């Protein structure tokens, strides 16, 4: 295992140590070592909170910042934060106007958030939730409620965070974030597995010369394993999964997010994006805004995810608002 670690059991705490030092202009520590909050949360706004397992940098703490999330709960690698961490994140974000907790659909996160919402209620804080389920490959369309949340969460945070920054009330923030994720579809292709540092070896296999279409952010098996293809064919495969599911059709305006899974060179993400853009143009789908980079990763997995969000005027306005965090800096 060629990795930069001390004792792998302490990797999350040590990562947080470095993160807080490096980004002291954006975020700060809280009394709970597993909760990071934005430095200057404007008074009187609805709080926006997220959280999830570690190993997905910049997610989740990388989206704590101006006009984005106000606080995030941090879990072990690939493992939900505790209910206590979600609760403390809500407390850190609460300005008396309620808190929107925007997170991804995983059983652990669901249970811990559920418990945190109950505890927050006892503490006098209203928390409403939006659960991201943009990963098309993780369940059939008629069981959308079972789908995982993946890179589409970034767009959900962007939209929800902007709505809160505009002064939207809790229901408006939740509605905007819900609309964002309802309009969003994603798919991933994995080229290599990833290794939890404390385990020391990959716990699933992607054979050399093959790729897994529909892979999850934790290596959850996808819909198909096939021989490795060139970038143009990969792009076609991804577009062919994502477009018909929503469906995105001619005349639609979309935001496109291409994220690396951790170890794929950013250069290759642009190669992939170029091919994706060609296909969207062929179909008459207009790209309003594009994000290309490592937005939501899976440790050192190679591969990428494609996320499309169908836009309307409200979503465009919210997407266009400036934002400043480690993972997303937008003028």
């Amino acid at each position: 295992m060629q990795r930069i670690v001390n004792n792998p059991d302490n990797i999350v705490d040590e990562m947080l140590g470095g993160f807080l030092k490096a980004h002291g202009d954006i975020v700060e520590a809280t009394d709970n070592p597993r909760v990071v909050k934005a430095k200057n949360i404007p008074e009187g706004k609805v709080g926006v909170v997220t959280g999830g397992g570690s190993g997905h940098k910049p997610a989740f703490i990388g989206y704590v910042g101006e006009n984005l999330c106000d606080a995030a709960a941090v879990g072990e690698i690939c493992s939900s934060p505790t209910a206590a961490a979600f609760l403390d994140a809500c407390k850190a974000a609460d300005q008396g106007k309620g808190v929107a907790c925007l997170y991804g659909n995983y059983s652990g996160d669901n249970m811990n958030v559920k418990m945190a919402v109950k505890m927050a209620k006892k503490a006098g804080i209203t928390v409403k939730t939006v659960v991201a389920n943009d990963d098309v490959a993780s369940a059939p369309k008629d069981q959308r409620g079972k789908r995982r949340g993946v890179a589409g969460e970034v767009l959900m945070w962007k939209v929800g965070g902007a709505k809160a920054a505009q002064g939207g009330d809790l229901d408006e923030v939740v509605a905007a974030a819900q609309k964002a994720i309802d309009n969003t579809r994603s798919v991933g292709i994995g080229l290599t597995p990833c290794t939890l540092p404390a385990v020391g070896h990959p716990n699933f296999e992607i054979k050399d010369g093959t790729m897994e279409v529909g892979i999850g952010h934790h290596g959850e098996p996808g819909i198909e394993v096939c021989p490795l293809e060139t970038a143009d064919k990969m792009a076609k495969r991804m577009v062919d999964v994502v477009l018909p599911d929503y469906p995105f059709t001619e005349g639609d305006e979309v935001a496109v997010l291409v994220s690396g899974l951790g170890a794929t060179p950013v250069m290759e993400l642009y190669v992939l994006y170029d091919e994706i853009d060609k296909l969207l143009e062929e179909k008459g789908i207009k790209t309003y805004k594009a994000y290309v980079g490592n937005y939501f990763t899976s440790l050192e997995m190679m591969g990428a995810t494609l996320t499309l969000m169908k836009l309307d005027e409200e979503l465009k306005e919210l997407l266009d608002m400036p934002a400043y965090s480690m993972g997303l800096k937008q003028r």
Partner: protein
Amino acid sequence: MSTFKNADGKPVLLKMVKAIQDNKAYLGEVDGLIGDGDHGMNMNKGFSVFEARFADKDISFTEGLDELGMILLNEIGGSMGPIYGTILMDMAEAGEGLEDISVADFGNMLAAGLDGLQGIVEAQVGDKTLVDTLSPAVDAVKQAQEAGEGYEAALQKMKAAAETGRDSTKDMVAKFGRSSRLGERSRGVLDAGAASCCIILSAMAEGISELL
């Protein structure tokens, strides 16, 4: 003996800790087949925190169950934090204040743990989760106790039921949790939670058996 002293129950807890530590790699591998492979690591971390904090302290069986549950719930998270946290804390609550723990008491405690779990997850027997291990284990203790078979026999039956329950998950298709999204692809592999639950229950049975 037909009971064990709650105050003397710490060795049972340490046996559970050791069993999880010994099976860290095994649970990681089982979880890696259809999950994300972190189950062994996280369970080991939580149980080891308990060991570090309480190995040298005087603590009863029920107090220890409560502390262990709190550690899993408040410090480990994941899905197993709230699941095992709830089971262990509800077991502890049901046995709180008992001086001696009879087989009937133990059966009640286990049943309370299962009840608590079913308050937070909807999984039933047959859904390929740890309920497939825990539920028959609860039934086995109750049946043995009602039939007057004695503590030792009840523990052995619990262990056997847990093992059968764990093995039954192999041929099931997952309906809850991360592996449920795999549908048919989840068949043929044990459920990691069912496997860890069996390890914990077996260690509990062995530990209590040594105290009788």
